């Protein structure tokens, strides 16, 4: 009973907030080009979905391509860093520098250097997204129980056997935590890159539609695009959570 109430709580809260929002907009007669109410936003989506849906698809394509690239890059670097302390020493500071540099600052350069716009967006989003996968996977690989490493050694395991039968499975929970953070970061990275590219005249993605709508003062459409982004973020986060539960179900089975 209490569990059900807790599950419903966010929805009830959301409905109340929406109602309050719509009520205030009506009561104060706020014009929709300043703050549109939820109904105006929904209507904007209904009239503009032919523009907004392809834009969403484009943003999500960048996001998932970047997430895939970030996964491959992050896991590869983490494994290489676990295998060689020299490689770790050489790479780690650069990975951190890349992580702390705001992507808005590097995006214009990347968009100039990579003249294929889709690839440029993916590169930007990958830069934003790969670090949590790298650092979590590296932490997981480093936390492999030393007794198990000894056991593999005693039984004459090869490096590859130790990697695939022990280290990678042992790092899986950490990797999945990183993946979940990276999933939402990839979306953020894609949107930021689209903003930069969009102000340079490359028309693609929801971010571009947001810029365009703000220039034209089509505020309800802008909000509709924002809502699509927010919902996408939540779905990505929840889906990766489900993936995590699915992949770890065996070791959590009591």
């Amino acid at each position, binding site marked *: 009973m209490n569990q059900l109430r807790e599950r419903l709580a966010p929805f009830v809260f959301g409905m109340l907030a929406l109602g309050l929002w719509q009520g205030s907009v009506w009561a104060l007669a706020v014009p929709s080009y300043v703050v549109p109410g939820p109904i105006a936003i929904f209507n904007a989506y209904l009239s503009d979905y032919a523009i907004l849906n392809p834009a969403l698809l484009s943003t999500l394509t960048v996001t998932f391509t970047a997430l895939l690239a970030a996964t491959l890059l992050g896991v590869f670097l983490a494994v290489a860093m676990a295998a060689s302390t020299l490689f770790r020493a050489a790479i780690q500071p650069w990975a951190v520098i890349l992580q702390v540099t705001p992507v808005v600052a590097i995006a214009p350069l990347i968009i100039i250097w990579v003249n294929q716009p889709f690839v440029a967006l993916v590169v930007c989003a990958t830069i934003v997204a790969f670090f949590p996968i790298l650092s979590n996977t590296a932490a997981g690989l480093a936390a492999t129980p030393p*007794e198990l490493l*000894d056991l593999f050694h005693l039984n*004459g395991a090869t490096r590859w056997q130790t990697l695939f039968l022990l280290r990678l499975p042992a790092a*899986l929970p950490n990797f999945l935590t990183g993946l979940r953070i990276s999933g939402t970061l990839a979306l953020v990275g894609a949107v930021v890159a689209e903003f930069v590219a969009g102000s340079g005249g490359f028309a693609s993605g929801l971010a571009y539609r947001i810029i365009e709508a703000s220039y034209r003062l089509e505020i309800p459409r802008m909000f509709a695009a924002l809502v699509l982004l927010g919902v996408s973020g939540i779905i990505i986060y929840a889906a990766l959570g489900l993936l995590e539960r699915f992949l770890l179900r065996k*070791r959590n089975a009591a």
Partner: protein
Amino acid sequence: MFTLRALAKQFPNGTRALEDITADIQAGEFVALLGPSGCGKSTLLRLLAGLEAPSAGQITWDAGHKPGPGDVGFVFQDATLLPWATAAENVYLPLRLRGQSRAETAPLIETTLARVGLAEFAGARPKALSGGMKMRVSIARALVSNPMLLLMDEPFAALDEFTRHRLQEDLHHLWRETGKTIVFVTHSIYEASFLASRILVMSPRPGRIAADIRASVPEGPNRRECPEYIALVHRITETFRRVMPL
């Protein structure tokens, strides 16, 4: 089976863990390495397993007894099972690492699990097993490759007393049945006296062998109460009082 001659281990940070360890271990002995925490028992076990190299002295193996991969079974204080694998898959691991197929080894895995009393739990994952059962899987994993030497590092220290007694009885029985050479690290005088045929008492800083005691507790259901056992416990206690005065 092997001879330790003036074995010493100093770690790079300067800790002298072992010094002047000399002993001659026969095949088929159940040796207990007994001593307080930090006296170098684990280090000695790791030297025997070849996981670490001595800084002085040597280990000489009798002809035909030099262990290769899989010839040493190692049981740690924690069961350290693969959490994503079933009991049977955990027991299969040492065989898998040597390229043997699951199908060809299935009967062996089954009998090994049965030997530690877990025939019905082949498909259970570690999360679903109690501490004692996990330790049984860990012992089965060490036995499955039929090692000539079984090294155990305080395997029962983390278990409750009831479970510990059961596992001690089963391990002693297993040793009697198979005649394996076992080196068993413990800090319990009672455990060493119950299990072993020979007890190496170690004193700390740096670790040395303070006494080498042959145990002759008769087999039977009353091993823990018989006068020989009580005399042995007493003798070891006296030895500790001598080498480690308060």
